């Protein structure tokens, strides 16, 4: 990503977090859903990327060093699978991430494990494997920057990135 894009995303994140609080119905992980501001449709449109990101939820979080999907993560992914099956025109990339508490290369591998766990779950829910690509950024792309657990838990994530295009 370019610096400009990321900087603007950060500002949007702050704005969304506020709106998320105001709406009361969104989880912490939804705070990044500002892609809607980038021309990805309105969250009120159930076929839009914005809807996927904000209403379905584009990410799941993990415990330290773990790639296990807890009940909340599974519920989110159930919603993702349902949406992806209904919106087959979207391409899907699953990004695995880690917090900064680990060595660089291990975290790349750990992010790959997390992305793969999400991929496998979506496949188990019927999403064609051929639509799902995975990538790991390890600890290279934190969204929260403090060095405390409150930030770390947001960074230990797998994000399902959907974009308009051929899905498979």
């Amino acid at each position, binding site marked *: 990503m370019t610096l400009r894009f990321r900087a603007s995303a950060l500002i949007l994140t702050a704005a969304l977090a506020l709106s998320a609080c105001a709406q009361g119905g969104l989880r912490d992980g939804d705070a990044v859903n500002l892609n809607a501001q980038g021309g990805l449709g309105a969250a009120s449109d159930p076929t839009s990327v914005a809807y996927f990101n904000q209403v379905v939820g584009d990410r799941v979080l993990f415990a330290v060093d773990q790639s296990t999907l807890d009940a909340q993560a599974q519920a989110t992914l159930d919603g993702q699978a349902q949406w992806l099956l209904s919106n087959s025109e979207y391409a899907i990339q699953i990004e695995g991430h880690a917090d900064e*508490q680990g060595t*660089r290369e*291990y975290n790349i591998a750990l992010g790959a*494990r997390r992305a*793969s766990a999400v991929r496998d779950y979506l496949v188990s829910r019927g999403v064609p494997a051929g639509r799902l690509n995975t990538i790991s950024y390890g600890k290279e792309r934190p969204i929260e*920057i403090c060095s405390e657990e409150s930030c770390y838990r947001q960074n230990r994530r797998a994000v399902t990135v959907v974009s308009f295009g051929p899905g498979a």
Partner: protein
Amino acid sequence: MLTRRSLIRTTAALTLASALPLVPARAQTGPLRLEITEGVIEPLPFAIPSFIARNGGAADAAADITRVIAADLRGTGLFRQIPETAHISSITAFDAPIQYNDWQAINAQALIVGEVEESGGRLIVRFRLFDVFSQQPLGEGLQFVGPREGWRRMAHNVADQVYERITGEGGYFDTRVVFVHEEGPKNARLKRLAIMDYDGANVQFLTDSRSLVLAPRFSPTGDRIIYTSYESGQPQVYLMDVATVTRRPLEAFTGGEMTFSPRFTPDGGSVVFSMAQGGNTDIFRVGVGGGARTQLTTAPSIETAPSFSPDGSQMVFESDRTGGQQIYVMPAGGGEPQRISRGTGRYGTPVWSPRGDYIAFTKQEAGRFHIGVMRTNGSEERLLTASFLDEGPTWAPNGRVLMFTRETAGADGAPAVYSVDISGRNLQRVATPGMASDPSWSPRLP
């Protein structure tokens, strides 16, 4: 480094073991052995009068070269420079007799004398090293010739000679470091490859910051770099020629595979790396020219950070097959890995010393990170550093000094390159043009 006993000897005599037969026998004294393993008790004092400029064209170079030699030696933590203002004698001619008493009077144990001559755009650098208290030259006088712009390398060559003659260890000053230069805030960090002299001079950028790059490593001859780049969209191993700054993927990109954590084999003919497939990460080997991959590990866990013993017979790597990261050694061609890390906590990024005697690693325990060394069977573990985040050691070519990444905590947290010797002493921040991480130390330049 200097033990108490050898220090006492040092005050009496400064001599090479190999020069022993030429040294008059002295009761209660022996050859100087600076063992760089046990920590310096007191740095060895040396004097380096400004090198003589043989002609006007050499004046600036003579001053610069003297300064860099002194900085190299001081930077080791093993040597202490006696300032020129304290000198009693001055060196007026390269071949003039040494007034040993004047240097003994200021307790200079080593004396470095040199001159620089400029001739047709080239520099000629000559030096001699003297053992002040035994009143002997320490080794032969030497002369280096090179282009004017190569004056730093000639200075480093002199310092390497001095270091080797006094410590018996290989010098590490005529070397370079490839690293990742970082810019921007923590959540929008830009990274690019850069290379510099070991002391931070002559920085050159090797990539732009459009693609994320990680963990470059030198080839055994220092002319190539292997690293991980996201420029194809996935993390993938790339090979770069240092002289031409041209790069290519190590293997054709097939999609769906992430390759990372590369390192050359000691013969430079192959690269070992990790590949993540379906959440499982294993270690593979492939020739630098391509060809078939050989899979070296097959566990369903994370196997990464491979590094070979200098003789190429064994490979050390990290694995979380028992839960947390631990360090394992296995035969290079494959076979059953043996776990060598034994302490509490997690161990990663093992790197075999170019001398073969130690393995350096990153240890994570109780929320702190350490750089440490252990014997190749896991014994004699010694932690050299402690901080919020230290990781990724790289060896100086003499196997006695390490560089690594240290990152500070918090929203403004920033990485920097540090060095430390294997006794845990002489921790220093290495000069870089900005935030820097993932250093890899070159071999001695040819």
